[in-house]
């Protein structure tokens, strides 16, 4: 359980090699934190060393977002091994190449499977065990790309729009259960995902996203934007007339 200062004993990162996910785990880890599990496709390459310190067990385990048939038993196995899950960070995701999808709709469907179907499946599995334990926090990496989907990344944006809506409703469904869901909406973050890309306005870093996330968790919020200014930027962008919206140079 989270103690009164919001410090977790057990943390799980789904998409355990994600720069943002790992930054959140590092920022959350406290003296009384017992374990961090990084769940990812290539556990051998997971950044466990950067998190290790005496008294804290850091472990990488195999997890693939598309193997939805394993998600429920996977989450159960985490509980069996470490006890209650206090915070789960759902950080996996792929950006994909929008320019390819026109000719390769299967690739687009695969992206949807990772970002949306896989996320929905693992979120439901997490909600089930947390409901059973009567407490827990789920952090979902959404994106401003889902706030108003742009043609330039419409498949990715649509998966995030779906994920965002689902996660908020999941949070609402858990109100009396002691479980909370926090939806994180970052803008452009300099991470492995955006390597080589030109930064968009209000670009930020994984550590800055992690700071904002941990603050929002402690405050019991449902949504956090990173950086915070994007909330106001999108209040405007959401209502721009379509012709203007299409011509915006958002990358």
């Amino acid at each position, binding site marked *: 359980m989270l103690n*009164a200062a919001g410090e977790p004993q057990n943390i799980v990162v789904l998409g355990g090699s994600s720069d943002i996910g790992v930054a959140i785990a590092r920022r959350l880890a406290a*003296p009384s934190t017992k374990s961090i599990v990084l769940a990812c496709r290539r556990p051998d390459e997971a950044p466990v060393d950067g998190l290790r310190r005496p008294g804290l067990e850091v472990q990488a385990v195999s997890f693939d977002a598309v193997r939805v048939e394993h998600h429920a038993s996977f989450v159960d196995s985490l509980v069996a091994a470490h006890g209650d899950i206090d915070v789960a960070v759902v950080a996996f995701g792929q950006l994909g190449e929008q320019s390819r999808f026109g000719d390769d709709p299967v690739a687009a469907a695969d992206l949807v499977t990772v970002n949306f179907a896989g996320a929905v499946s693992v979120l439901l599995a997490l909600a089930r065990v947390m409901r059973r334990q009567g407490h827990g926090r789920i952090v979902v990496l959404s994106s401003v790309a889902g706030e108003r989907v742009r043609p330039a990344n419409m498949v990715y944006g649509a998966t995030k729009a779906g994920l965002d809506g689902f996660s908020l409703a999941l949070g609402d469904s858990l109100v009396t259960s002691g479980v909370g869901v926090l939806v994180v909406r970052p803008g452009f973050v300099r991470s492995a995902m955006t390597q080589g890309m030109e930064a968009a306005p209000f670009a930020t870093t994984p550590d800055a996203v992690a700071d904002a996330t941990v603050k929002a968790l402690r*405050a019991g919020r449902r949504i956090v934007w990173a950086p915070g200014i994007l909330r106001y930027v999108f209040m405007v962008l959401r209502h721009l007339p379509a012709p203007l919206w299409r011509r915006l140079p958002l990358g």
Partner: protein
Amino acid sequence: MSPDYAPEVLRGWGLSTMSSARVATVSERDVVDHVKDADERGVLVRGLGRSYGDAAQNGGGRVLRLASSPSDVRLDEAAGTVTVGAGVSLDDLLRVIVPRGFFVPVTPGTRFVTVGGAVAADIHGKNHHLEGSFGNHVRRFSLVLADGSVLECSREQNPDAFWTTIGGMGLTGVIRDVTFGLIRIETSRCRVDTVRCDDFDELIEQMSTGDDDVRYSVAWVDLLSGGARFGRGVLWRGDHARRDDLPVADRADALAYGPRQLVSVPPVVPGPGVVNALSSAVFNELWFRKEPRRREGSIKSIPAYFHPLDAVGSWNRLYGGHGFVQYQFLIPFGRETELRLIVEAIVASRLATPLVVLKRFGVGNDAPLSFPMPGWTLTVDLPAGAATLASLTHALDDIVLDAGGRHYLAKDALLGPDAIRVGYPRLAEWQAVRDRLDPQRNFRSDLARRLGLME
């Protein structure tokens, strides 16, 4: 399991911990049917939820509220003892016994605790230095075990179940009814002396030399002032007033007792709460100035002397949405340097609020998880939303434990398993008896899981 369990989010009094459990109110008679067949989230009994942290929470499991009848108070005036259901509150009990010339042997700073909660946390009061904690006055109790059987416990009968349950935080079984000794009183008033001390050394000196002559003694320390005024405080000493102490007009109705709640805090307090550094500093200044250097023999009512906070309903909401923690620790005698160091660290943190209490403990009892032992105990409220809270308390934890001290489980909401193992060296002994009483581990709590009390 009967259908009258309903999901409910339960919090500690500090409003800074929470989890959801299935909750039901059960009678003393039916409780035997509700402790058996628990799943791996277990079952726990909750009193009035006045422990500050997660002691009375059991996330994902079942939580029982014990419906004891306040009219079923069996007072043995000749023996000076009372037998009550464990779900009866001290508030209910005092309304019965004070007019008949008796007072509870130990009272916390609120009368809204149950007798069960008083035993399970082995609570202490302002008379600890002379009269010990609540468990010292318990003659016997009946304990509903995990298999539904009822065990009679006293110093003679099942003494290890007796001592394991006292201070055992509800993890050995359900305490069903309790017999304990009372204090005989001539009036419902207290006679109080106050001494103002200009700094910390003077306060420690006054308490070290004068305490043993007075039944009730506690000091209030101003943690918001530094420099020459560092650690200034007011020492409150008192005892139950004798009939002769009262003005003549009051003597006819010397045992009159009718505590009232004056106001209540609404459920939602906007923003970060109204207890902030500024209001605290003003509060402390006023309170300190209010007291003359030394005043003797002022007469106060029981509520005004023992339970002043109870005049304000739900005052815990004043800290705003994040809630607060009450950090209470003990430092053995001889380690006053460390005590001072901690007080300095709290002053420097600028996090402290007005409710800072210093008390000198006397000898402890035989219960392995009982908190009090000879030394100083300091109690300070800290806002849970403060970014620097955890770094402050983790640093303080180290000083407390290195000095051979410990933390009070009924208040704790921050520690991890290691701190309890160091602070309570008899934990393994407690666990062995607990496991014998409840081998399936039906009784569980959030506190037990957080601190690894069963592991």
